[in-house]
C-alpha cells in the first residue's frame, strides 16, 4: 500500500485567468455593489464596457480583497479603501527603495 502523493496543480490567477464580476464577488466574499463602487473610485480598472462584460484579473482580486477586509474590519468606505490602498502601494515602493539603498 504505497500511494504516491497526488499534488494539486493550481494555476497562477494573475496570468491565466479572467474573472467576471460574479467570480470576483465570490472570490472576495463581496456584494457586487461594493465592487462597482470600487471600479467607480478608479481602484479597479477591469477590461470591458459594462458590468456584465467586465473582466478582472488577480491583481484586481488582491486589491478588492483588501478593500473588502478594510471595510468589514475597520468600517472604511470605498473612497477610503482606495486611498489606503494607494498609500500602501507608495509605502511598499518606498520600502523597496530603502532596502535597495541600504543594501540589506
Amino acid at each position, binding site marked *: 500500500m504505497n500511494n504516491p*502523493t497526488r*499534488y494539486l*496543480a493550481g494555476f*497562477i490567477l494573475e496570468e491565466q485567468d479572467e474573472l467576471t464580476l460574479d467570480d470576483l464577488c465570490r472570490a472576495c*466574499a463581496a456584494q457586487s455593489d461594493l465592487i462597482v463602487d470600487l471600479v467607480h473610485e478608479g481602484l479597479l480598472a477591469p477590461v470591458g464596457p459594462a458590468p456584465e462584460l467586465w473582466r478582472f484579473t488577480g491583481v484586481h482580486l488582491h486589491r478588492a*480583497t483588501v478593500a473588502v477586509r478594510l471595510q468589514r474590519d475597520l468600517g472604511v468606505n470605498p473612497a477610503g479603501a482606495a486611498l489606503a490602498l494607494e498609500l500602501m502601494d507608495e509605502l511598499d515602493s518606498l520600502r*523597496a527603495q530603502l532596502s535597495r539603498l541600504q*543594501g*540589506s
Partner: protein
Amino acid sequence: MEFKDYYKVMGVERSATPDEIKKAHRKLARKYHPDVSKEKNAEARFKEIAEAYEVLRDPEKRAAYDQLGADYQAGQDFRPPPGWNPGRASGGATGGHFGGAEGFDHSDFFDAIFRGMGGEPPGRGGFGGMRGGHGFDMHGQDQHAKIQIDIGDSYSGATRKLQLRMPVEDETGVTMQDRTIEFVIPKGIRAGQHIRLAGQGAPGIGKGSAGDLYLDVEFLPHALYRAEGHDVYMTLPVAPWEAALGAEVEAPTPTGEVELKIPPGSASGRKLRLKGRGLPGKTPGDFYFVLQVVLPAADTDAAKKAYENMAATFKAFRPRAGLQNTGGKA
C-alpha cells in the same frame, strides 16, 4: 486551556462603556489589521482583538463572561465551572458555523465558554442553522490562505504541504477540521500573486459545488536575493580597485554561479543586469547586481601606508565639493 482576559486584550477597564470598547477596538484594529500592519504577529493579535470585541460588544456574551469573575489572570489554566451555562442558544443557531472567505477561528477558551450561544463574528455571514433546509443549494465559499515560499521555489517550481483549518462536510454535517493540502508551486510565481485550487474551498450546500481555495503567495526574506515583481536584485560587494579599474568576479545567482565583468569607473549603486535571469515566465524578469564598494580596514602598518599613499595621490580629490553651507535654506 488558558484563560483569556478580554479586557486586557482591548486595553480597557472592566467598567468600560460600550462606546469606550468600540473606540478601543477601532484603534487596535487599525494598528494590527493584517493588510495594513507591519507589526510582528499582526494576524494573531488581530484575531485576538476581534474575539475580545465579539464578546465585549455583545451585552449577553459580556454578562456571561463577567460571571466568571475577575479572579482569573490571563494565561491561567481555566476549566469552565461545573454546570456552566452561558445562557440560551441565541437565534436558533445550531452550531456548526463557519466564517466568511477568511475562515475565522475562535480560541478554545471562547469555544468552551460560548458553546451553544451562537458564535458568529460580526459582519461575517455564517450558515449556522441553515443545514437542515430542504431544496436549498448554495455554492461553497471560497477560502484564502497565505503561503510563504523561498525565492528559489519560484525559479524551479516546487511542491508544498499546507495544513488548513477549514469547514469539511461528513455524515454529521459541516465541522471545522484540519486538512492537509498538497499542491504544486508553479514555476515563475511572484510575491502578491495567487494560486487558485479549484474545488478546494468550503463544501457547497445541497447541490451547490465546492468553493475554490486561493493561496496568496509571499516570499520569505532571502539573505542575498530580493524580488521586485519579476526582477531579482542582489547587492554585490566590490573592492575600491575593482570598482575603479574594472574586474572579473564570480558571483552567485539563483540559477548558479556566474562570471561577471565589473566595468572600470563603477560607483556604489551601479546596477549590472543579467537579462532574463530574474523569475522565469512567459516574459522572464531580469537579474540585477547592485554594486556596493567596501573598504578594507586600515589595521596594519602596511594598510595604513596604502591609504596614506592614496591620500597623497588624490590630493585634488574633494569628496564634499558638492556640499555648500546655505544656512538651512533650500
